[in-house]
């Protein structure tokens, strides 16, 4: 599939006011509002366009599978440091559109932090280039980062450039036995010290801590922290990144983002803790209004991450925006997609 074909499809949809559902591999179809519109399959627009290991960037077309990009990076000892989930064949475009980051997020940054530039086809079918391939670029508004996490509502990401980083020389994982509150306390205490913590995961009374960096630094930190060193930990972090771990196996899963120090919510069903305490997963029969209210009161927000359609059609996936912010979102949506044809309702029901 060529850029011209994407442009033609969006132009036609714009002219005919036909809602489109932008789709890469469809690996995150479960995420966000209910799917609507005619599928515009972007998976055929694929391939790495440019990869410069010493310039620390990779540019690829939207349909390129993350695994293909990561295989190319691995040949030069580099990685996508935000560790986005790959699920079943996730593509670069979908990765940026969903903005979901993995275990290394608190140390390395989120997907948006690595976006250097995008080639966007907006809702009129215009091809727009924002950002570029250089690390620093403050000319014009930072539209490329605005696109990250916008769930395809502002345009089709035809091509994108991400910053890449070297893989750490050494990695080790420690295991501690502790309750959830104690895990949160420890994670924040460690976070405030110059320790090479690159990921954390708490589940059923066990806390796993990954250390990454220079071999000497990892060793020194492991000696300081104690705990039990885990063999074959790479697989554990892969399972967490891909959400294959038992913690995520629930028909209804809430993703609650909080300030890392927030005390436990007065809501039952906490399953797992990630990101140094800033990401907490809840499962089971959770009252939507109660968990939202508790998350907001604690300074965060709650996302209905995964749920059967019977629930998804009743509950907004994302925490509702205050009226002034919602109005601003609608105005921005109109800038990029005046006819409202791109992924309607995927982010918020209102647009």
């Amino acid at each position, binding site marked *: 599939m060529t850029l011209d074909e994407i442009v033609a499809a969006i132009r036609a949809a714009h002219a005919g006011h036909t809602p489109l559902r932008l789709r890469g591999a469809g690996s995150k179809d479960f995420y966000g509002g209910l799917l609507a519109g005619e599928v515009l399959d972007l998976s055929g627009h694929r391939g790495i366009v440019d990869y410069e290991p010493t310039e620390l960037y990779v540019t690829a077309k939207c349909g390129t599978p993350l695994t293909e990009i990561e295989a190319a990076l691995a040949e030069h000892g580099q990685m996508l440091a935000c560790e986005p989930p790959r699920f079943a064949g996730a593509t670069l475009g979908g990765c940026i559109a969903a903005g979901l980051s993995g275990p290394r997020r608190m140390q390395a940054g989120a997907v*948006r932090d690595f976006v250097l530039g995008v080639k966007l086809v907006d809702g009129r079918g215009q091809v727009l280039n924002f950002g570029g391939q250089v690390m620093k*670029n403050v000319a014009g508004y930072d*539209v490329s*980062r605005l696109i990250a996490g916008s769930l395809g509502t502002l345009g089709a990401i035809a091509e994108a450039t991400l910053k890449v980083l070297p893989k750490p020389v050494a990695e080790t994982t420690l295991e501690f036995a502790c309750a959830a509150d104690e895990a949160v306390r420890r994670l924040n205490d460690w*976070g405030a010290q110059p320790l090479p913590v690159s990921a954390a995961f708490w589940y059923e009374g066990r806390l796993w801590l990954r250390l990454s960096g220079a071999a000497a630094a990892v060793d020194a930190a492991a000696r300081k922290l104690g705990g039990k060193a885990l063999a074959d930990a790479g697989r554990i972090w892969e399972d967490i990144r891909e959400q294959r771990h038992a913690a995520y196996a629930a028909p209804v899963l809430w993703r609650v983002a909080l300030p890392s*120090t927030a005390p436990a919510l007065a809501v039952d069903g906490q399953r797992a803790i990630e990101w140094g305490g800033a990401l907490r997963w809840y499962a089971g029969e959770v009252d939507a209004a109660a968990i939202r209210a508790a998350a907001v009161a604690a300074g965060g927000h709650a996302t209905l991450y995964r749920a059967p359609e019977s629930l998804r059609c009743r509950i907004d996936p994302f925490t509702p925006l205050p009226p002034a*912010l919602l109005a601003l979102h609608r105005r921005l949506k109109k800038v990029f997609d005046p006819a409202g044809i791109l992924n309607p309702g995927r982010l918020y029901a209102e647009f």
Partner: protein
Amino acid sequence: MNVDASSRCDPATLHRRLRNVLPPHCLLVEDEDLRPYECDGLTAYREMPLAVCLPENEGQVVDVLRTCHQLGVPVVARGAGTGLSGGAMPHAEGVVLSLARFNRILKVDRDSRTAVVQPGVRNLAVSEAAAPFGLYYAPDPSSQIACTLGGNVAENSGGVHCLKYGLTVHNVLRIRMVSIEGEIFEIGSGAPDAPGYDLLALCIGSEGLLGVVTEVTVKLVPKPELAQVVMASFDDVAQAGDAVAAIIAAGIIPAGLEMMDKPATAAVEPFVKAGYDLDAAAILLCESDGTPEEVAEEIARVRAVLTGCGARDLRVSQSEAERLRFWAGRKAAFPAVGRITPDYYCMDGTIPRKRLAEMLAAIAAMETKYGLRCANVFHAGDGNLHPLIMYDMSKPGDWEKAEAFGAEILELSVALGGSITGEHGVGIEKINQMCVQYATPELETFHAVKAAFDDKRLLNPEKAIPSLHRCAEYGRMHVHRGELKFPDLERF
């Protein structure tokens, strides 16, 4: 976009309306009081405003903005005025809104590693307040003793450590912003991945065109236990550029990676006595930070790489005092150049690092073409070049030559695959070169984004994003991404 002459507000009305919402000591209207605000760090561009407002609380900010919105009066927000692109230069028919009195650090929290500060707080003051907890605020623009967090947010400021620690956009978690209509927005939060569009990314670096920031929550990071710097000298700038690529290829992301060419070290050394190798064509400063074990390991690898790349001399700082001395020269590069020339003009383009030698050769040719000297300092790690063009404002025609010299460097930055500005912002200075970097559809999108926040275009008008009319006048609507339609045409 010019403010429509027919809707121009007369100064007396504006002053009367502002007196209704501000106490007397928060409003300046006399010429002698306005004069200090006529420019920012880019002194070549000056304008006198109709008034300067110095609100003391958010309610007053809201009232000033509402008043200006009702009267159709432009508003230019200002922090410390250290910016180098004229972003805080006043508008002749407008008001300067100084956030200087928003100078309180509201909270520093060790456990969540965050600080909540007002926009007039100085960058360095945040790190000083966090120091007792072993934490600091990472972005460190060279003006950090004076520049404010509000200005950093407006410009998406960087610094010498941003390859490893990121820019302002990577280190700010939340802002509180007042729109031109006086509406208050909370953008981002202390929790990750705020719902909805990433407005934080959109607003950071928006150069005061979208709103006025009244509060900022920043991320603090643990202060590394140790930092050491390797200083390497090279006989050839291309070789130094290759050494930078080799460090990255070896899987090392240094805490800082800076380059200076011979004219820069020559200017700096008599001033700071940093011990630079004055015979070298270029010197590299490569900093490693972390635990002592980590630093020792990384420094050993850096030394091996640099030796392999043909460094003619290598020195590793043996004490904190020596490390600071090595850096002192780099940090004093601008004032040092200021000592050897009546005036200098600092550029801020970014380029892919591999194009460095090409860029420096082109700059050398431009020195001959314009008859002006140029010293180059380079944030080599992230490709951000600061050529310092030396000129004499008192010499007729010299400034015009310097401006044309600078414009040519910026346009070449775009042609080489880079950007006209890495960290100083577009402001008024690079407004014409925006027409080179972006084509009409992108510029139209920028204007539409602006209108979504400020449909009367009152916040910092005529800055950052050029009107299409302006680009047409500049004669560059046909130029995009360096594809000059008439590459041989001389332009002054």
